[in-house]
């Protein structure tokens, strides 16, 4: 009886997953096996043609670029987010919730609007150029539409996603372990390297996934801050859906990306030996 009641509690969740996740995903998957007709209708016959087309070498550099952006973003988020999380978790004191609130504050504004703000900061006649580069170099720098501007925008957007799980992981570390390390002769640096860092690994792994995965598929940031040569796989998929109206091919691209990511995540979790840590 108890067991059955417990199952009832999960039911809405299962329903949600089925209706809002599995069904649309199934529809996308199904669509990817059809061809779009010259009239932009979705054809009837089943084919692998979309997948064959997706193997087009034109997509390799795009995929590689997206992965590089995601990797650079993840790295930057970890490098910036870890000290931030460390400070909040270990030295935040009674202001801890205030710091977390400040970290989340940008979320109260639309991501789009915030990215738009970066556009105005980075543009040729933007604040950074007028205040920094023009007086310094005597000419403005082209910062928009570069790899750098895309990675900057992505890093800005995903920094909280990296900081929060690390902060949670750090907070969960028993303070007496830090004392034990110091007690056993561990200097602050070796305490950090030998105790804090390994114990925060679940947080770092979560932060990596939470940053890399969405950064890999993101299309808004490269659309706004990028240029013709920074096209990402997310933009390529979006293009198929909204510009070329080839939904089946877009679906095939999206599914391939998903499978690729799943394999990547599985490999990452195995290599980092984190199945146990996460469990």
């Amino acid at each position: 009886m108890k067991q059955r009641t417990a199952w009832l509690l999960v039911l809405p969740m299962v329903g949600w997953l089925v209706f809002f996740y599995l069904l649309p995903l199934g529809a996308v998957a199904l669509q990817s096996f059809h061809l779009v007709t010259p009239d932009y209708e979705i054809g009837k016959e089943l084919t692998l043609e979309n997948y064959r087309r997706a193997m087009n070498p034109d997509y390799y550099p795009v995929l590689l670029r997206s992965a590089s952006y995601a990797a650079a973003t993840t790295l930057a988020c970890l490098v910036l987010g870890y000290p931030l999380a460390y400070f909040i978790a270990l030295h935040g004191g009674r202001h801890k919730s205030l710091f977390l609130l400040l970290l989340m504050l940008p979320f109260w504004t639309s991501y789009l609007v915030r990215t738009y703000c970066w556009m105005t900061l980075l543009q040729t006649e933007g604040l950074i150029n007028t205040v920094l580069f023009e007086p310094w170099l005597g000419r403005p720098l082209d910062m928009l539409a570069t790899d750098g501007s895309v990675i900057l925008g992505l890093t800005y957007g995903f920094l909280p996603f990296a900081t929060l799980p690390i902060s949670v992981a750090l907070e969960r570390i028993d303070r007496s372990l830090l004392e034990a390390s110091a007690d056993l002769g561990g200097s602050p640096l070796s305490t950090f390297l030998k105790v804090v860092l390994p114990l925060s690994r679940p947080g770092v792994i979560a932060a990596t996934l939470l940053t890399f995965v969405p950064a890999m598929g993101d299309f808004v940031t490269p659309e706004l801050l990028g240029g013709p040569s920074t096209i990402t796989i997310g933009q390529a998929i979006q293009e198929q859906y909204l510009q070329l109206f080839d939904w089946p091919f877009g679906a095939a691209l999206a599914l391939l990306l998903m499978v690729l990511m799943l394999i990547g995540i599985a490999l990452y979790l195995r290599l980092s030996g984190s199945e146990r840590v996460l469990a």
Partner: protein
Amino acid sequence: MSRRSFLGCLATGALLSSCSLAPKTLNFYNWANYIGETTIPDFQKATGIRVNQDTFSSQDVLFAKLKIGLEGYDLVVATDYMVRRLIKHQLLAPMQGVSGLEGLLPRFQHKPWDPEHRFSVPYLWGTTGVAFNTTHARPVPDSLSVLWEPRYKNRIGMLNEKRDTIGAALLKLGLDGNSVRPEDLERAQRALLEQKPLVRKYSTDMIDDLVRQELHVALGYSGDVGQAHESLPEVGYVIPREGGYIWADNLCIPHDAPHYEAAIAFVNFVLKPEVAAAITNTVGYPNAVTRARELVDPRLLDNPLGYAPEQMLEQTIFQEDLGQGERLWDRVWEKVKLHSV
């Protein structure tokens, strides 16, 4: 803000609220910033019909929504080639009870996409041509080839709309702007790939970039460039000597519109010269009502940004439905966008 704003697309995704089912309402699906300042309140005052306006960022989004069968829209704004596609897909209702069609500019009467005006009424129109900044682009350009000049590297903007950008390449090469011949498209693709390293961005929202002088030369829509000109007088516009596109956005009624009568009432309202003129004066795009011409801001007359002079319009062509050939254009577009410089 451009009528084709990427921001607008993402920010105003919400579909019409429950009030769409109430009597005396009209659900209008339009480009962003593409209506007169007081048109909607004036219409409501005159007829008692409440207007809910929703906006799209591209014709493809409009087509997608109608094709999926999202119900609720009573009136939509469709560009000429899209009208033909919507008719072909039987997504439009015939319009009955529209008066004033005979007062339309001859150029927009009985066009091939809807010769009898059964499904569409021209709303606003414009041209696709070359925008430039006179401070940076000298001599003043008159040709599409300026968009391929290396000295403007990283200051060139192209439209993120395959019809306009591939079309510009075709026209530049002296080919038919509606060609579906593979060899023509092959040449256009080569030209665009060659051009790509010079291009700052493919975008449908050029106004800001022109004003901020991020772009010095660009492929653009007349009315949008006109808005940029308002903010920065150095911004100019020309219909290139190789030719440009002329297009009309049309009012159409979806086949499943819940408030058909209200939609007809709105179409008739907009066809009134004073209403049409007010819309033009707000958005800068000319309208198709002949008698409205006398009422619009004189600065828009004989101006390529607004009512372009006749001899300029002589060089323009309409974007025709490409039929099965559109897939070829799609492949070229895909190739160009994916190409890594």
